[in-house]
């Protein structure tokens, strides 16, 4: 018994060590920015060295914050899963979403994106300041944001309906968790569009708009991924369906929801697609 407990502790320590090594390795490797990455975010094959430096630092910041956020979210899910259920899972099931590596990892990535966007554009010390009265650019993919909002509201209504009919509060709690993720994404969009912008250099404006457009699209995709995953969880918890004639439909929706979430997460990634090639100017 004592030996078993000792072995268990050793295994846990070993697993923690491996996980921390993976965190450090992934953070360092994942944050590295290549000239191809810079060309992708700049939308030009060879931006000037000064612009490339700005893009590179911005992308590195984004990647570091997102990777750290995602890994911390995954670590949280692993801790909860191990402590509550003695196992770790990815995707919907009988466990709580707090023990789902995908759900918590996605939440962590969203918080990481918010952290990456929460910076102030520094300017050289001066007694004069200028600003444009033109409107700030809005979200670059409002369509995705509206779809995500609609799905979040539908999830909340579904969770509320299940709770109101006396079938448990779990779906409602899941919907509230999804709503929190939506609010984090909305706060990130607000940080992206509301940040101070350069006005006196046309090149600086182009670089700034390019970065905002990338971040806005990426966060909109993350928001939609979070909303779809939440809705998938709600569908998986609809009572009385898993044994009836609707069971195959429920399974299909669950699989489709998870697949869509993974695709959206992949598309929201702050790195160019594998097949992307910089167009010569």
């Amino acid at each position, binding site marked *: 018994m004592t030996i078993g407990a000792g072995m268990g502790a050793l295994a846990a320590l070993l697993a923690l060590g491996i996980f921390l090594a993976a965190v450090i390795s992934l953070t360092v490797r994942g944050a590295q920015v290549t000239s191809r990455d810079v060309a992708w975010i700049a939308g030009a094959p060879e931006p000037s060295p000064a612009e490339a430096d700005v893009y590179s630092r911005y992308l590195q910041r984004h990647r570091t914050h997102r990777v750290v956020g995602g890994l911390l979210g995954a670590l949280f899910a692993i801790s909860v899963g191990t402590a509550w259920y003695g196992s770790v899972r990815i995707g919907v099931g009988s466990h709580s979403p707090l023990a789902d590596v995908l759900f918590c990892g996605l939440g962590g990535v969203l918080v990481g994106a918010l952290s990456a966007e929460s910076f102030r554009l520094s300017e050289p010390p001066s*007694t*004069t*300041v*200028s*600003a*444009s*009265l*033109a*409107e*700030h650019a809005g979200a670059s993919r409002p369509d995705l944001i509206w779809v995500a909002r609609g799905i979040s509201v539908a999830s909340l209504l579904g969770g509320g309906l299940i709770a109101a009919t006396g079938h448990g509060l779990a779906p409602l709690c899941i919907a509230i968790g999804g709503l929190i993720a939506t609010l984090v994404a909305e706060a990130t969009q607000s940080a992206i*569009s*509301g*940040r*101070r*912008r350069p*006005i*006196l250099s046309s090149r600086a404006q182009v670089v700034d708009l390019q970065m905002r457009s990338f971040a806005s699209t990426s966060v909109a995709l993350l928001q939609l991924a979070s909303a779809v995953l939440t809705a998938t969880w709600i569908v998986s918890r609809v009572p009385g369906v898993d044994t009836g004639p609707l069971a195959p439909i429920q399974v299909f929706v669950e699989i489709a929801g998870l697949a869509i979430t993974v695709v959206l997460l992949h598309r929201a990634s702050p790195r160019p697609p594998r097949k992307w090639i910089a167009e010569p100017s």
Partner: protein
Amino acid sequence: MIVHLDTRSPVPVFEQLRTQIERLIASGQLRPGTKLPPIRHLATDLGLARATVNKVYDALARDGLVETAGRHGTIVLDGSKANTTATDLSAAADTMVVIAHQLGIGPAAAHQALDEALNRL
């Protein structure tokens, strides 16, 4: 449509901002129906407190130059009520000439400085 504030100026930044927006409305560069940026955006861009920008928008609304349309933002109205004239520009030019004289700068250098300033905006 650029506004430019000087924190060393004896004129309060509130008054500088109000006057410049008033001029843009009077000149028609800010046309009736144009939406002014939200208070928090303009305050962030200028590094001012939101209350200062809010005060400017309130003053413009009192003068009948803009109207606050709730969540639709602040909308520019007709610029005919604006209290600005072309003498503003000649007064500014006089100030520039005085500064150029005091600094010992000749007409060519003063013109060059003016051209550079115009190109920056």
